[in-house]
Structures are given as C-alpha cells and as structure tokens.
C-alpha cells in the first residue's frame, strides 16, 4: 500500500445552514484499467476477484461488503477499499495478471475525500462545476471538473456527495467550498 504522506487531516471544514463540508477518514483506493481480451480473459473475473459485479456503464457504481467501485471510463474504474482489506484485494487482482493483463495501481496516498452534505449541497457544487450537478443521479459517480481541478464526485443522496480530490488541489478546493458554504448560508439568513 502506498504511504499517506501529506494531506488534510480528517476534520469538519465548515458547517453552515446551507451545507457542511468535512474531510473524511483515509480510505484505500485502487485505480483499475482492464478489458475483456481476445485470449479468453474475461472482465467478469476482475469483478469476481474484488467481490462485486463491476459496473460497465460510465458513471455507474457497485458496492459489496464495504468495497465500492465506480466506472469512470470505458475500461477504467476507481475501487474504494477499507484499509484492512486492500492487500487482499490487490493480491486477488495480481493473481489475474497471466489470464487477464490489466493495470492496477494503489492510489490511496494520492487523494483525499471531502464529504459535502446539506440542503444546498448541490448549489454549493455548482459554484465550481461547469456541468449540471442534477445530471448526476443519486447512486452514480462521475469524474468531472471542479474549480479547475479534476475530481471524482459520488452522489449518495439528493443532498449528500463525496468528492475525491488530489492532495495537491485539496487545500485550494476546500477554501472554495468553505467560502461558498458561508455565502450560501449568508443568503439564507
């Protein structure tokens, strides 16, 4: 597992009537690239190794036993794994290399997750996202642009989101979200 070098510590960034932004606990992450090949290697084997059925449509997600996967591209997934299980999952995937060549990279230390929830969470996200947040349905995830940085946004309900951001952008994006949450709350008051 890649070591966690520098990132924001888990904490509540801002908590207003409009939205609450917090930095989540560290979680294991795997970037996975794979596809069914001509030599009989089947993509379904990858899902089996992880312990869930890999979603194949871009933006869709699957979850089983604490492990979550989102399809980000035609042959690309992000898999979130509890820290205690990540080595087991990596070993299971590594065993597939001979039959199904693929790319598995541990990106645990690359990103930090922000949780954004509250009645105006979607409005808060709209300050930095060119795309329409409403086009991301509950239970989906997308890689998209937010305030100049590429992020992965997971929508868990109408009013709660998780945003995976690279560590190098994290403090900047947190400041954007903090300012936005305060402004939205000021409008409510």
């Amino acid at each position, binding site marked *: 597992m890649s070591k966690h070098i520098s990132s924001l510590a888990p904490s509540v960034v801002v908590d207003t009537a409009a939205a609450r932004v917090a930095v989540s606990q560290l979680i294991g992450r795997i970037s996975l690239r794979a596809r069914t090949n001509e030599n009989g290697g089947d993509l379904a084997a990858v899902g089996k190794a992880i312990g869930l059925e890999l979603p194949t449509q*871009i*933006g869709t997600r699957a979850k089983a036993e604490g492990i979550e996967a989102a399809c*980000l*591209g*035609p042959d*690309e997934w992000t898999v979130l794994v509890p820290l205690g299980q990540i080595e087991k999952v990596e070993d299971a995937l590594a065993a597939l290399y001979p039959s199904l060549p693929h790319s598995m990279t541990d990106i645990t230390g690359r990103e930090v997750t922000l949780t954004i929830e509250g009645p105006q969470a979607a409005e808060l996200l709209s300050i930095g996202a*060119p*795309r329409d947040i409403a*086009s991301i349905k509950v239970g989906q995830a*997308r*890689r*998209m*642009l937010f305030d100049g940085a*590429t992020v992965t946004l997971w929508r868990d309900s109408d009013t709660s989101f998780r945003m995976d951001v690279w560590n190098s952008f994290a403090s900047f994006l947190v400041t954007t979200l903090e300012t936005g949450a305060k402004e939205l709350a000021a409008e409510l008051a």
Partner: protein
Amino acid sequence: MIQIHCPYCGETLPELEFAYAGEAHIDRPVSPTEQTDEEWAEFLFMRQNVKGPHFERWRHVHGCGRFFNAVRNTITDRFYTTYKAGEPRPDLATLLEEDNK
C-alpha cells in the same frame, strides 16, 4: 458555452471538460524509416487548416479521458457530430443535410 457530446459517456457536457487535439484521421506511416524527410515533414506538420466543416480530435480530459473525433465548423463553432475513435469518417454531405433540417 459550447456543449459537446462525448460518444463514450453518452452525455452532452460543457466544453471546459474537453481538450482539442488537432486534425483527425491522420495515420502514422507504417514504417517511418522508409520515409523521406519531405514525406515525414508532411505527416508531422502539414495540416489542412480548413475553413468550414473540419474533422478533428477531441479528448474528454476531465471525464472519461477518451479521445474521440468530431466534425466542427471552424467558422461557427457548430458541432455536426461526434463519434468514437477508430470509427469511419462520416459522410459530410449527409451531415450537413441533416443539420439543415
């Protein structure tokens, strides 16, 4: 803002998520060592610089990350269509006719 349809995501998204990647349908010569300097320069540098409908590559860089092809009018910025990389070049006359309807 221009909205671009990504053929891989199946969604029409703001242009800020995309990056332009030059003219489309330019094949790299199979054996570069057999090329003369002139032929190689032609492949590397010479582009059509079309005024009007242009076949070009785009990349959904802040999304699925895929390269795809598009037909865009370089005067009006109108996208007539987008299609996956590797698919054949669509017939321009048909595209323009459909667009006029």
